[in-house]
């Protein structure tokens, strides 16, 4: 058994174990154990990866394993990682781990809840380790579908509507994506040899430009739907608002990153010419996402909506940076994915905990919580500061890398758009501070809130894990940035060599 497949096998084993359990109290222990193991695996993967790189292994992908799966279409179960996937896997295991603890007190159908949650995680892990387009798509779908159940069954508010909307829009996206992937597949060998789904093999050939022009937008939009690309982002506010805590965390923290990761790894990496040609359209869309999401967040009254719009803004920044197609901006995009993943998971965890106490998410119904639940409030402030890009926390590193990178673009148009995107940092601070001021500061407005209990041990584990990671990236971004940068190098080289701009 190779180490990467373990990332799929461990969740599956955990699920099996949960299903065999009779006692629902043990379910969460088993889940926590399984996902803790996964976190350890991720840590050791980082270690192994860095050791291998240090030992001079300069392959594009490490730990590659390839099993033929379906012969006539040449589908393989092919796995492999580079620095980017390693970083994303680490992110995922962190968020899932924190998510398990954030949903410690789920009572209703607990067993089924954890099974769905871990199934979702399985899909995400599988997605990040795959280097075969078809397998990747399979895991992608595997991640999307449990979402429907998780929101539809354990959600709040208009959960059926939200679940339906989210699933339908994501499925619509994956329909486009499937067309795009098949388009890539059928153009994967212009010289008439065997067609392939393997990313590494496809990256060595040049897909004919007319085909790229058709399939690049399809693939990009397909992934873009998941990455909350304007105007396909509207599932996100409703979906997040209705989802239970851990699902919001996982969804905003990890699942939305599949979009950015896919857009980068598939759409741009495999079809750089069309990407370069068409990037201006998507640059405009993504910068609209960035500004528009931030402005949208200002006007919201529901904590989760605020955060959902903020995610639109931040994820817009990811796609924005990816489209700039230079080393620094892409590096920033990856860091932003990780940083936003952690931050937004933290946010949703805290919102869930606050909601669990006050039973409302409307900011105007709360106030002065800092005095009542200081631990959670301080964590909320930290999350907010991370989100508005305070140095020392991860958001700053990511945003600055993106901005500096994007501003190195040789064309004036892109630089001007970058300045527009930069202005989002102000708007972000407006809505973050607005929430912090209304929610946490000021006098305690409602006497019912005077005696709320502060965080319990499992909530602390969840929150501290995330804050620790956010601060770690913020204080010492160098190792992460280098790990990603090294892996980006061959990709950038391919893109640059084809587009001497």
């Amino acid at each position, binding site marked *: 058994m190779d180490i990467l497949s373990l990332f799929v096998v461990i969740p599956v084993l955990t699920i099996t174990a949960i299903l065999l359990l009779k006692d629902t109290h043990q379910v969460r222990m088993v889940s926590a154990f399984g996902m803790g193991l996964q976190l350890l695996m991720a840590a050791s993967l980082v270690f192994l990866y860095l050791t291998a790189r240090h030992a001079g292994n300069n392959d594009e992908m490490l730990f590659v394993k390839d099993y033929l799966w379906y012969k006539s279409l040449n589908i393989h179960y092919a796995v492999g990682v580079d620095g980017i996937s390693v970083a994303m896997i680490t992110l995922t295991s962190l968020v899932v781990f924190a998510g398990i603890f954030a949903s410690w007190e789920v009572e209703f159908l607990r067993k089924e809840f954890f099974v769905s949650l871990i199934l979702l995680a399985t899909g995400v892990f599988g997605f990040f380790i795959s280097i075969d387009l078809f397998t990747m798509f399979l895991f992608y779908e595997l991640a999307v579908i449990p979402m429907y159940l998780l929101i539809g069954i354990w959600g709040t508010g208009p959960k059926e509507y939200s679940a339906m*909307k989210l699933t*339908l*829009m994501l499925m619509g996206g994956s329909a486009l994506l499937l067309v795009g992937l098949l388009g890539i597949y059928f153009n994967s060998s212009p010289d008439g040899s065997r067609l392939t789904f393997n990313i590494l093999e496809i990256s060595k050939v040049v897909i004919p430009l007319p085909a790229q022009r058709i399939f690049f937008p399809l693939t990009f939009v397909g992934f873009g739907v998941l990455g909350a690309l*304007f*105007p396909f*982002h*509207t*599932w996100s*506010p*409703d979906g997040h608002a209705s989802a239970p805590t851990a699902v919001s965390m996982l969804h905003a923290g990890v699942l939305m990153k599949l979009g950015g990761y896919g857009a980068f790894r598939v759409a741009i990496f495999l079809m750089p010419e069309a990407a370069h040609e068409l990037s201006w359209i998507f640059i405009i869309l993504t910068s609209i996402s960035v500004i*528009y999401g931030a*402005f*949208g967040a*200002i*006007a*919201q009254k529901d904590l989760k909506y605020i955060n959902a*719009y903020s995610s639109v803004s931040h994820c817009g920044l990811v796609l924005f940076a990816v489209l700039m197609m230079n*080393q*620094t901006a892409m*590096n920033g995009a990856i860091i932003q994915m990780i940083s936003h993943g952690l931050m937004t998971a933290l946010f949703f965890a805290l919102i869930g905990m606050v909601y669990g106490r006050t039973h409302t998410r409307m900011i105007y119904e709360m106030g*002065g919580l*800092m*005095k009542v639940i200081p631990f959670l409030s301080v964590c909320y402030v930290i999350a907010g*500061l991370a989100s*508005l*890009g*305070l*140095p*020392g926390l991860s958001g*700053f*590193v990511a945003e*600055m*890398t993106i*901005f*500096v*990178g994007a*501003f*190195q673009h040789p064309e004036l148009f892109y*630089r001007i758009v*970058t*300045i527009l995107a*930069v*202005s989002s*940092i*102000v708007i972000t*601070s*407006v809505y973050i*501070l*607005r929430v912090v*001021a209304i929610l*946490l*500061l*000021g*006098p*305690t407005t409602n006497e019912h809130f005077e005696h709320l209990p502060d965080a319990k041990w499992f909530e602390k584990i969840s929150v501290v894990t995330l804050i620790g990671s956010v601060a770690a990236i913020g204080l010492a*971004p*160098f190792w992460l*940035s*280098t790990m990603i*940068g090294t892996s980006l190098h061959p990709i950038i080289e391919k893109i640059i060599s084809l587009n001497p701009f």
Partner: protein
Amino acid sequence: MINFSYTIWIPLLPFLMFILLGLAGHKLKPKLSGLLGTGGLGIITILSYITAFKYFFTSEKVDGAYQKITALNFTWLQFTDKLHIDLGVLLDPISVMMLVVITTVSFMVHIYSLGYMKGEKGFERFFSFLSLFSFSMLGLVLATNIFQMYIFWELVGVSSFLLIGFYYQKPSAVRASKKAFIVTRFADLGFLIGILILSFNTKTFDFITLTNPTGSAIAQGGGIAFLGLSVMTWSMIFVFMGGVGKSAMFPFHIWLPDAMEGPTPVSALIHAATMVVAGVYLVARMFPIYALSAPVALKVVAYVGAFSSLFAAIIACTQTDIKRVLAYSTMSQIGYMMLALGVAGYGGHEGLGYMASMFHLFTHAMFKALLFLGAGAIIHAVHSNYMTEMGGLRKYLPVTHITFLIACLTIAGIPPLSGFFSKDEILAAAFHSNKILFAVEYAVAGLTAFYMFRLYFSIFWGKDTHYHHTLHEAPATMTIPLIVLAIGCIITGFIPFNKLVTSDGRILESEIELMIAIPSVLIGLLGIGIAYIMYRKESTIPDRLAATFKYSYKWAYNKFYIDELYLFVTKKIIFRYISDPVAWFDRHIVDGTMNAIASVTQSVSFRIRGFQSGQLQKYAFVFVTGAIMLAILFIYLWK
């Protein structure tokens, strides 16, 4: 070469204190945590003095100029081969000077806070925030590159936010902290854009490379033009925008008066002595570029500074909240410094303004911290911020009275106090460069003397107010810093700044020009005289004057309605005309489109579900007919 690598501990120690007090503060006894914070700062104050001594007096000069020493530098985040954020320690005359200023004032404020904040809830939190601020401010001044400066720039912003909002249950404090953060954040946007443009053109962040007067970065400046100004000019104007925000220059000054909602020691440290001069420091840091490559931007600096100083001085004459008077006074004095930088040139005698600006920064830190701490002592005793509720306090608070008087005389520019020297240099620099600006500053000098003594007389003299409780002098922890700073006010004027801190590191020959010094003292005395007449005793003159110039008084009293303008822009335009429509648009147009697609699909399905009638025979009929049709089609029609 002297080894300066220990200087890393100067910012690092407060950071460790912050972590310690922030994480474990609530477990320690409040007193212990206060002492820990103060002790940490005491150590780095000593370190700073040692550094200053070593730098100014024992380090080697090359070609008669102080060198920029990079004591420590490591790459924190790599963007491209050339662009990377480093963290490190850069020592040059201004950063060393700032070290001394910051650690001194901060140390004094720490001691003062031990008394002032005694018994407050969140005592240890206060000290951990103070440590965070000290860390950030020291990191800012020691920055080796512009991006490091930006990092710490943001950090001082956030520590200011946290400290202004220290009384987080007070809605006005929350509002003020929010305002301060957002306004400065908006200005920082300009700073960031400036950095981006600058780095795009020069491909470096490093200060030494950037400000090397013969280096490639400055030589590049003339280049590409946009709206008639060179790229370098644009980037410098944007960078200056950051400075405008942090230093509360017009038009980003609105946060500073509100920031007085924070505890008074915070106002003294952050909003008088250190953080607000960061903008001045920024311009000084980039000065060679401004002077050599972007003279237009430098002009902007000068005019913004001059206008702000006049504008703030006028408002200060009408305010009644003593901390707000001081806040406007701060703004006015920083305007002075900006102006001085703006009229300076690089090197030689042209650099007088630069030197004067730094000098004034130094002296201002002392006397303004003193004024604020004195005001704190008064508020501590009286429990009110309004000078209309004070009067005759000289009897109750003798130490505070004397030190406050010294500070007032210093700011009024009365020799031989330090303010006289620095202000005189500024006026001289302005006089040699631009007569209009000189006239403005001359008037401001008079106004300054007037409003400061208005304050002084109303508090310590004036009518005898009856207080609800017996007033008593502040404890020693509060008076000692007052005395130390008062001594500072007296002696710092004699520091030979022209030998130490100049634009090019060389000694600048300058002497007091009597032609300028005498009139400036005279106008100061005139201001004091008018204040004496109006406020020494209770009198009706101020009210009558206010009635005569009703409209102008009202405008000045309401700060020229700038706040209202901002409120209009933010509340009306941003919230009502941008955010709400965006939210509406998103819910109804974008999401509406998605929902419309869904509902169209649904209604079509409802239409066609009639086929699925459950009537077996209908199905069969359709099937048979279809089969027949297909048969006909394939056998006869498809040939």
